[in-house]
């Protein structure tokens, strides 16, 4: 891959589905795009999901082509494992400072053979599997990662040198340094996405107990390329026969600073629950909810289907989750549709439908404002929902508030259109005149 040039039309921050879509839209319109992702692979959250509601399409099957398209696009330059350190307005454009983190190997030379990973003696919980499976201190992020290049995690490496000895291209470099790169761009799109609220955010839900799971862990467990290859509970490897979902676990709750609805958790919980009904014969799956927010296209129908296929939904306020013997869980709930009667149930597994929080803050990096909830502020939310408080900086996807994949994709397209018009208005030109804007 050619090195980063010093000038592009647009910088897209974040290589999730929204960032990729924004980059592709701009690329297709003839603009030169620098797509910066802070982790070692693009794909964002979506590439780790199992199937997507409401179509139950396999998520990686529809995400990986977008990843490949972004990687192969003639006008998109991918820059993974890189942080955006600072973006300053200069005229109508921006001066960007990037911090390219070292993979401790020659990225050009690495052929992704995975020999180093097999040789490495150190095992670390794998973030791609929400900490459930293991990876080595040197690893390829996952089977669908782009680029397929190893990365050495210097925090855990003991410098035993085993990887270096097996590498067929001899590409390891333990002395590599991070690199600072400066780039000029005409417009910026923020598509930095989200994290799931930490599991301990509401201690009464037992987020730290081994059989209380995050929804991301459940996605991974259900995935055919997941850590177990089947649905088992983490504490003892038993097949769970009864599973409870706690909805709005850390959303719509001012007490923990997440007053908003996270918008996707009703649907992902229904999706996971329905799939559990397919994966485990006769499993008892119950969602305890405040409101089922199945508002998108085809979602209400999906909700009805899940219920028809045996997913139980109960309007209830969960008071607490505690551990019983054998790692089972006791869930105490106020049944709102039964006049507030308090009930206690035993479950093999509990999933907390945790809310979505911003993965990144502009603080000290770009001078755009954020709302009290931490998501990027969009002052013209009605007609120009991708505008931020800084002209030339646009936002798309979950970075502008929780949303599902189609909504993130639509918004990314909008951000790209807004950026294109901004570039057009100020006649920004990146260096390659031949490939520059056609219209």
């Amino acid at each position, binding site marked *: 891959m050619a090195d980063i040039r010093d000038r592009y039309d647009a910088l897209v921050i974040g290589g999730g589905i929204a960032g990729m879509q924004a980059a592709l839209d701009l690329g*297709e319109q003839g603009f030169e795009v620098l797509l910066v992702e802070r982790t070692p692979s693009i794909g964002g959250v979506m590439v780790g999901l199992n199937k997507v509601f409401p179509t139950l399409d396999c998520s990686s099957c529809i995400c990986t082509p977008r990843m490949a398209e972004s990687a192969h696009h003639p006008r998109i330059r991918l820059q993974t494992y890189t942080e955006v350190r600072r973006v300053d307005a200069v005229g109508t454009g921006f001066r960007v400072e990037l911090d390219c983190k070292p993979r401790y190997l020659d990225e050009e030379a690495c052929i992704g053979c995975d020999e180093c990973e097999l040789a490495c003696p150190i095992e670390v919980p794998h973030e791609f599997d929400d900490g459930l499976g293991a990876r080595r201190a040197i690893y390829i992020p996952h089977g669908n990662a782009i680029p397929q290049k190893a990365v050495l995690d210097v925090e855990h490496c003991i410098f035993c040198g085993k990887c270096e000895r097996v590498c067929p291209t001899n590409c390891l470099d333990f002395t590599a340094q991070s690199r600072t790169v400066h780039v000029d761009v005409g417009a910026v799109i923020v598509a930095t996405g989200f994290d799931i609220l930490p599991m301990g955010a509401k201690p009464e839900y037992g987020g730290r107990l081994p059989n209380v799971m995050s929804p991301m862990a459940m996605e991974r467990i259900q995935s055919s390329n997941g850590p177990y290859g089947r649905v088992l509970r983490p504490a003892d490897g038993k097949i769970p026969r009864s599973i409870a979902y706690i909805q709005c676990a850390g959303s719509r709750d001012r007490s923990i600073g997440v007053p908003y609805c996270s918008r996707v958790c009703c649907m992902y919980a229904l999706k996971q629950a329905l799939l559990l009904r397919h994966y485990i014969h006769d499993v008892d799956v119950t969602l305890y909810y405040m409101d089922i927010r199945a508002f998108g296209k085809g979602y209400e129908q999906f909700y009805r289907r899940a219920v028809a296929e045996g997913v139980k939904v109960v309007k209830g306020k969960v008071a607490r989750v505690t551990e019983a013997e054998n790692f089972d869980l006791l869930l105490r709930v106020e049944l709102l549709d039964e006049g507030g009667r308090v009930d206690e149930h035993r479950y093999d597994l509990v999933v907390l439908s945790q809310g979505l929080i911003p993965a990144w803050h502009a603080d000290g990096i770009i001078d755009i404002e954020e709302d009290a909830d931490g998501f990027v502020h969009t002052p013209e939310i009605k007609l120009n929902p*991708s505008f931020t408080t800084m002209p030339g900086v646009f936002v798309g996807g979950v970075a502008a508030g929780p949303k599902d994949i189609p909504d993130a994709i639509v918004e990314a397209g909008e951000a790209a259109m807004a950026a294109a018009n901004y570039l057009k208005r100020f006649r920004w030109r990146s260096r390659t005149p031949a490939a520059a804007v056609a219209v």
Partner: protein
Amino acid sequence: MFDATDSAASGSTPGVQAPRVGVFVCHCGGNISDVVDVKRVAEEAARMPDVVFTTTHMFHCSDPGQALIEQKIREHALTRVVVAACSPTLHQITFRRAVERAGLNQYLFEHVNIREHVSWVIEDKEAATAKASRLVRAAVNRARLLVPLDKRRIPIHPAALVIGGGVAGLMAARDLGDRGMKVTLIENRPFLGGRMAQLWNVFPTNEEARPLLSNLVRDVVKHPLITILTGAHVVNSEGVVGDFKTKIKIDARGVDERLTYPGNAIAACPEETISEFDFALSRRKAIYMPYPGCFPPIPAIDWHTCTKCGKCVAAVGGKGINLDAKSRELTLHSGVIILATGYDPYEPLLGEYGYGIFPKVITLQQLHRMLDPEGPTAGALPFDSNTPVRIGFLHCVGARQIDGVNAPQPDGKVKDYCARTCCTAAMHAAVALRERFPKSHITSFYQDMRTYGRGHEEYYEQASQQGVLFVRYSPWHPPRVDKDRTGKWPVVVRTNDLLTDGLPIEVPLDLLVLATGVVPHDISELVTMYSCAVGYDSFLLEVHPKLRPVELAVSGVFLAGCCQGPMDITEACSAASAAASKAAAMISQGQVEMDPFIASVDEEVCTGCQTCLTVCPYDAIVRDEARGLAIVSEALCTGCGTCAAACPSSAIQQAGFNDRQVRAEIDVLLGV
């Protein structure tokens, strides 16, 4: 067994390399391999003639999976590639590109669907594997006969047609105009602005709707690249992506800019009808303007109501009004089309929740008109601010309906989808009413409170804090709206409140507001003209609900806003800009690439029988009178193959699907 000896395959055709077939079978991460023995499929394919390499991979669509294909093409000098995986709608392009990157013509590739067609529909592993194997072997036999083809490149006429002048259409037009592209925006009604113009105030910013809209309209109107036509209807459409020829009819407006004092003309008009803009809450004249500040800022004449009495003309001294104006027709050329035809509020059936029977049962849209200071009641409700009025909001009217519980609509179906915007809209209105009538009692009858968006939940919270009562009803037992037996109240709502253990309750009300759903605006003619796909919910159906939400399956036609499904203004604007972005990409590339699978006539063989002319659904074949032959128009042919199948003398062959290729495939499928 099949005939493996047919040998154009052996490379005798000039420029066609001898077949060396590579077969790649995908696990699809278990989606396929859990049911199909992919290794056995590969092994059986390996025994086919000309197959020189076979393998399997966890995810062939992934980058490493694609890289493997490229590598093996080079390593084994493959000249034909077969990939057995998911549906070609997903990944055919992915693999064609991989094949091309390895230096092969992309049409030397054959895609076999062993997921949707096999592993997802067959449980028995043996049967599934047998079917997958046979499909793959058939594809191999066909692939042996493939020849390189070139993509068709169609130049794009650098202009866009936007159909619909609501907020989404306006936004799409503005974006394309700003991007430097020529746009024509056509609107059915005599005025721009669509449904947003009828709203009084919008969530989540509590802004007045029309000033917001007027700014956008102003940008569009003064834009040098945008032409606006109101009262315009599509009557016919021809052509395909790159060059759509759309014939439109423009209604006679009867009024032009020379009319300087429209008020005088309107006042003089003796004919009245109900105002559709005010949802029948007021009446308007035959010559009318729906609201102050509308665009165009001149009245229009409603010819159904006008009697041509001439009083308006007399009142303005004859200037600017022409009662004999005629409609006109014109044809627009555009490379792309954006559909932004919007929605209609659900109109409750007569008697549904008392609608149309009790005057104090109104829709949320009507409430908006009443709250509008420029509306029919000048913003006043029929109560004074000190009376303790009782107001109810009933959610999910014409939405989330259940077959067998709710009465079917005229089309025989129920509205089973959630209308997405009404929960927040109802809460936004409830909060506003509480502020305006501090002594009011407001009850919300709901199923689930779907205030999902940014800044939406706040209305729900505020409403709760302000004492709005929430009654949760079951969709299986919708509330009943009756008259009050004591005669004290205009209406009574009876239901069972799930939140209090299903206790039956009776809530007497002064006003019941129905939070009605959203149905697509009727565009059945456009649907037929552009062969658009429509979902069960009657909204336009995007190509891929996840990944390509603003594109229709018809190349060059894009979707913006509520014609696709319920959305709020923010979401409609996003969709419009996203659609504009795709359209801009197409136009800025100057051409579209199309598959080369078109029909061609072998002039030596054609007998001029004209069978093909009668079967072609796209009128793509004409008769060359002089020579007595059929000729295919490349621009119009979609490659449907109907003519090739119908031609009695086999004079028509379709590129990529010629008789020999298709027969080779069928032979293996039938095991002959």
